């Protein structure tokens, strides 16, 4: 039981730690990057002309403003960790960020001479320097968007405190001039940070050319934060499921302990112990168990946390933004939250048994068989309550409330409902099983189910608990399997090219760095190439935050997408795209509520806000942020940009893609580092990312399975030990050790099978909810439910194996123990 609580708490804590860490990492790194800015000026997609900043300065329009360039660098010496390059102007930056000026705001010019005057000079934090053994004066190879160069460490940032240390850990600071040169963005800025009073905003905005926007700093982070929020909530809710499993096991064990001690309570009541005192006695026990279990769970959670933190930040990296903050420390709040949750959960689970114990009348008026008879009438009532609970769950699901917690509440009701129904189901099925059992196992086949029915007060609780545990496992497994299945199908549809070329990215997101313009003409004249598709992806502003806009030159793009909805004929698609229509991906459509015909989306372009009609919504699992797909011609006309970020080659039938990949890798196309992949390897790369995305869910499924497994083991073990005396009598009456062994195994096996059996529909419903409600609300993805028999067999397998394992010890124990010992004392 301790283990049940401990593991439940551990899972909650581990997930909460990961979430807290992810959110903190985001907070810290965004704070480090955006500092105290109240507003930001940025341009659509292609960066800001630096002259805007200079003009604003020379005209005295802005007072507290500073230019910024950010880019993610890959630095081989620093391993896989993406490094955030932050290009700043030290002279104006101190009003925004506290790490380049000294404490009193004075600029330590003497320390910055090289940094300002010498090309390729950077600052890194002492933490990073120490970790990789880098000293001032050392050289580092860096690549930004495929552009490779060498930088010199001109100084170290000595963080003032722990949080700063973490924030700066993944950061490289460069003078704005150096940053322009490293990223190849000569003449460009990413944004201008400003501190504006409310009445300055409009006067600044009036000065901005079209295609340049002024927004509050919060607005920018808010959109990202909002999306990761859904993801994190999804995780914590899943971790709650693990706790619910643990809770059921606690309930099971406590109920058991109470039922077993009924005679004792009867005697105590005779001796003058009040109901209140018995209630307090049970609750105190629960409290002690809860505290110890939660303590163990907290320790376990911290251990698990180091893994979950890594997995969650990886996922966030893949799906949302590159995080450069690696560690944020253990959030004490998470530990407290988890620990208290564990204790409260234990108390809650113990409350019903405690109330029941307190209700014990003086002496045992109600005998064991009386209890069983009561239990059997209760089973019917429980069944009805279960049906009602399921109904409530279903109603909750169809409530038009867009809240993940409602979804999880529904899940909870459904699972509990099934658990309640399981007692009734078991009573009916077991009775029906008697003749079957007789046929299969003879005498024991009859005795076992009867004995289970006869002790329904104990067995049904155990089976219900097991069912909950297994159904959660089934639900998660089904979701993950379905997701993988869906992505596989999607990839097969979407990846129609044979060879793909792009600039390597640091995370799993769409490549955004343009491919050297010299590359495309070479590829177009390559023998064996039937078609060259290009894609230009840029980040654009929408009313729902920044998303990726991709422009394709492929007239057949419509055939290469799977549509959720399409508001024009397949044959008109390309024409409509060229006429300014856009396709948007499902997550974006859901997030912006654009499902349905006649919608349009606003995009901030160099010409200002422009409205594009949505002509279709397609499935896309590459990002949960969303993508806008447009035609190259439209993009080039509006953005005045003919660069491309990814190229797909379709080869003649008889050409081997791998051969082309190899030959392209051998030919020196450009100085730029390019990623040239065959369809096959791109697909497996993409799948890798998906595996990573669901690594945490998989891990949680495994934990839930372990909790379930241990729970089955634990409760069946208790149940069998409770039967110990009866087995002793049977031994005395002449039942052989082997028969006892088989009887025990049959009993636990039956319970395992029933738990597994009831878990299947419950698990299926959980999976449905996870897939169609929870996932869709947190990621915006539609996943095709893929029900494989393997999952169900697995569930049955888990419960059966656990049940049989649970039977082994009592079976061995009881069959080995001489009957004399079992019945020796009364």
């Amino acid at each position, binding site marked *: 039981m301790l283990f049940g609580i401990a593991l439940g708490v551990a899972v909650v804590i581990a997930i909460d730690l990961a979430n807290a860490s992810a959110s903190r990492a985001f907070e*810290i790194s965004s*704070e*480090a990057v955006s*500092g*105290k800015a109240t507003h930001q000026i940025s341009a659509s997609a292609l960066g800001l002309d*630096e002259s805007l900043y*200079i003009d604003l*300065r*020379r*005209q*005295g329009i802005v007072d507290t403003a500073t230019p910024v360039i950010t880019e993610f660098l890959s630095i081989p010496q620093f391993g896989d960790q993406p490094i955030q390059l932050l290009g700043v*102007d030290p*002279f*104006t930056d101190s009003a925004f*960020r*506290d*790490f*380049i000026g*000294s*404490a009193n705001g004075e600029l*330590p*010019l*003497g*320390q*910055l*001479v*090289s940094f*300002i*005057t*010498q090309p390729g000079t950077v*600052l890194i934090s*002492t933490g990073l320097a120490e970790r990789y053994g880098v000293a*001032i*004066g050392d050289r580092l190879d860096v690549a930004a968007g495929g552009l490779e160069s060498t930088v010199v460490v*001109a*100084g*170290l*940032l000595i*963080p*003032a405190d722990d*949080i*700063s240390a973490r924030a*700066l850990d993944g950061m490289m600071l460069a*003078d704005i*001039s*150096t940053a322009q*040169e490293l990223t190849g963005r*000569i003449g460009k800025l990413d944004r201008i940070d400003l501190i504006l009073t409310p009445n300055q905003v409009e006067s600044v905005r009036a000065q901005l050319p079209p295609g340049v926007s002024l927004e509050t700093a919060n607005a920018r982070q808010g959109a990202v934060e909002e999306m990761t929020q859904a993801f994190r909530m999804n995780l914590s809710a899943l971790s709650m499921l693990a706790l619910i499993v643990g809770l059921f096991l606690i309930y099971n064990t406590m109920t058991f302990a109470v039922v077993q001690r009924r005679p004792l309570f009867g005697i105590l009541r005779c001796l003058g112990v009040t*109901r*209140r005192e018995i*209630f*307090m006695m049970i*609750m105190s026990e629960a409290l002690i168990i809860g505290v110890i279990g939660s303590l163990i769970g907290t320790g376990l959670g911290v251990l698990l946390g180091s893994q979950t933190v890594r997995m969650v930040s990886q996922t966030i990296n893949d799906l949302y933004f590159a995080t450069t903050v690696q560690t944020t420390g253990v959030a*004490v*709040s998470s530990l*407290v*939250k988890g620990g*208290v949750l564990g204790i409260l959960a234990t*108390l809650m689970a113990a*409350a019903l048994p405690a109330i029941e114990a307190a209700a014990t009348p003086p002496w045992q008026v109600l005998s064991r068989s009386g209890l069983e008879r009561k239990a059997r009438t209760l089973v019917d009532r429980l069944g009805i309550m279960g049906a009602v609970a399921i109904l409530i769950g279903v109603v909750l699901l169809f409530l038009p409330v867009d809240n993940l917690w409602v979804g999880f509440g529904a899940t909870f009701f459904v699972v509990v409902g099934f658990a309640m129904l399981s007692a009734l189901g078991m009573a009916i099925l077991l009775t029906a099983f008697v003749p079957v059992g007789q046929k299969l196992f003879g005498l024991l086949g009859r005795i076992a189910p009867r004995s289970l029915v006869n002790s329904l007060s104990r067995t049904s609780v155990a089976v219900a608990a097991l069912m909950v545990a297994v159904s959660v496992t089934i639900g998660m497994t089904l979701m993950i399997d379905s997701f993988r299945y869906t992505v596989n199908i999607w990839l097969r549809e979407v990846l129609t090219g044979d060879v793909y070329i792009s600039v390597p990215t640091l995370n799993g997101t769409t490549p955004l760095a343009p491919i050297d313009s010299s590359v495309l003409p070479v590829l177009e004249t390559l023998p064996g190439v039937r078609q060259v598709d290009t894609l230009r992806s840029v980040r654009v502003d929408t009313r729902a935050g920044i998303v990726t806009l991709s422009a394709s030159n492929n007239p057949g793009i419509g055939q290469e997408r799977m549509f959720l909805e399409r508001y024009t004929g397949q044959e008109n698609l390309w024409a409509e795209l060229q006429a300014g229509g856009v396709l948007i991906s499902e997550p974006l459509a859901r997030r912006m509520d654009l499902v349905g015909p006649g919608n349009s989306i606003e995009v901030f372009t160099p010409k200002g806000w422009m409205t594009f009609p949505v002509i279709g919504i397609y499935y896309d699992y590459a990002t949960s942020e969303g993508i806008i797909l447009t035609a190259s011609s439209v993009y080039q006309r509006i953005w005045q940009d003919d660069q491309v970020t990814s190229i797909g080659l379709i080869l003649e039938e008889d050409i081997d893609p791998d051969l082309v990949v190899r030959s392209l890798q051998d030919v020196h196309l450009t100085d730029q580092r390019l990623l040239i992949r065959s369809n096959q390897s791109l697909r497996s790369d993409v799948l890798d990312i998906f595996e990573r995305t669901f690594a945490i869910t998989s891990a949680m499924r495994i934990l839930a399975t372990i909790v379930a497994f241990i729970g089955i083991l634990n409760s069946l073990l208790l149940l069998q030990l409770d039967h110990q005396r009866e087995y002793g009598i049977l031994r005395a009456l002449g039942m052989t050790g082997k028969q006892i062994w088989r009887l025990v195994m049959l009993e636990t096996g039956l319970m395992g099978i029933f738990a597994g059996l009831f878990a299947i529909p419950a698990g299926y419903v959980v999976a449905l909810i996870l897939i169609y409600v929870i996932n869709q609300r947190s990621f915006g993805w539609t996943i095709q439910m893929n029900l494989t028999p393997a999952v169900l067999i697995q569930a049955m397998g888990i419960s059966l194996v656990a049940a049989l394992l649970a039977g082994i010890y009592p079976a061995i124990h009881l069959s080995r123990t001489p009957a004399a010992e079992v019945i020796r004392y009364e």
Partner: protein
Amino acid sequence: MSKTITRWVIVMAVTLTIVLWVTHLQGGQGERPVQARISGSGMLSADGFERAEPGRVFQFPRDHGAHPEYQTEWWYYTGNLQTSEGRRFGYQLTFFRRALIPPNQVRQRESDWAASQVYLAHFTLSDISANEFNFTERISRGAAGLAGSVGEPAYSVWLQDWSVRQLSDDRYELSARDAAGAITLGMVDEKGPLLQGIQGYSQKGPQSGNASYYYSQTRLHSSGTVEVNGEAYEVDGVSWMDHEFSTSALAEDQVGWDWFSLQLDNDTELMLYTIRDQNGQVDPYSQGSLVLAGGEVVPLSSAEYTIEILDTWHSPGSGARYPAQWRITVPSRAIRLDIRPLMAAQELNVTFTYWEGAVSVTGEVGDVPVAGYGYVELTGYAHSMQGEF
């Protein structure tokens, strides 16, 4: 019994609430800014820069512009202005240039932002009748057009939107604005650039090279507008400009200076400075000059004048004690002048702390009474100026 259960439920609910609240509070703790210090490489060094030597031939407007081969340079504009109603204003607009590396070490760079020069500027407005003094400091790289100074084809010096531009041979335009006020002046140079020291070579210490090049425009007739607290005033008055550049002006034991630029109503101007050492002793390299009505510059050695401090002022801001009233005598010219600050609080508490303020002058030249206005700069009272601009 039900009471017990109720009590349990309440206890649990309260605990849960407290925990959630506490964790929520904890969640909000991330407001502390990310802070760090820098340990960098490279030093500000005078190596590789040229030093001021006697015999320089000045050429204008070219020499109005920056001289990056010297490490430091400044353009000082100060002036006393008044409205037709007699409301007085003083202003200071100073540009400092500091080279981080000498020109021969500057590498060819792609980015416009690549900088080897740092510009710093101070802008003050003294609203005498309101007894209000405002100052603002700005710093910028001398690159990307954000700050700089050129001499040809026409002179200008600017830092963002603060600038002085040459409009024609003897006409200039000065403008600056900060949160508290603004100034726009058209200036006519009535006497032309006047070389200080020995033909513009101004020895500041015993060592060769402890010197600067120094010239002034001592009578810039100025008119335009001053804006204070959102109200614009038409003003008229006289400005003074000093332009000085050097690599290492102050000797090691020199901590600061008192500098006087006085414009008298007899069309003469007096410039004096005393360099003080650590013990408050007046350095013999202190000097001055008297500009006669016709533009003739009469150099004055430190032996030729005395500056007597009659009063002091204790700055509540920096805690420094500044001289606040002086009697200047130049016996050889029968000049005796009493100088009083137009207001006491004209201290700038910026990168380095100093007092620079508008003063009034009364006194006699021989038997003839004179009056006038000017500016006094007092440095090294709050901390040593060694190593600063």
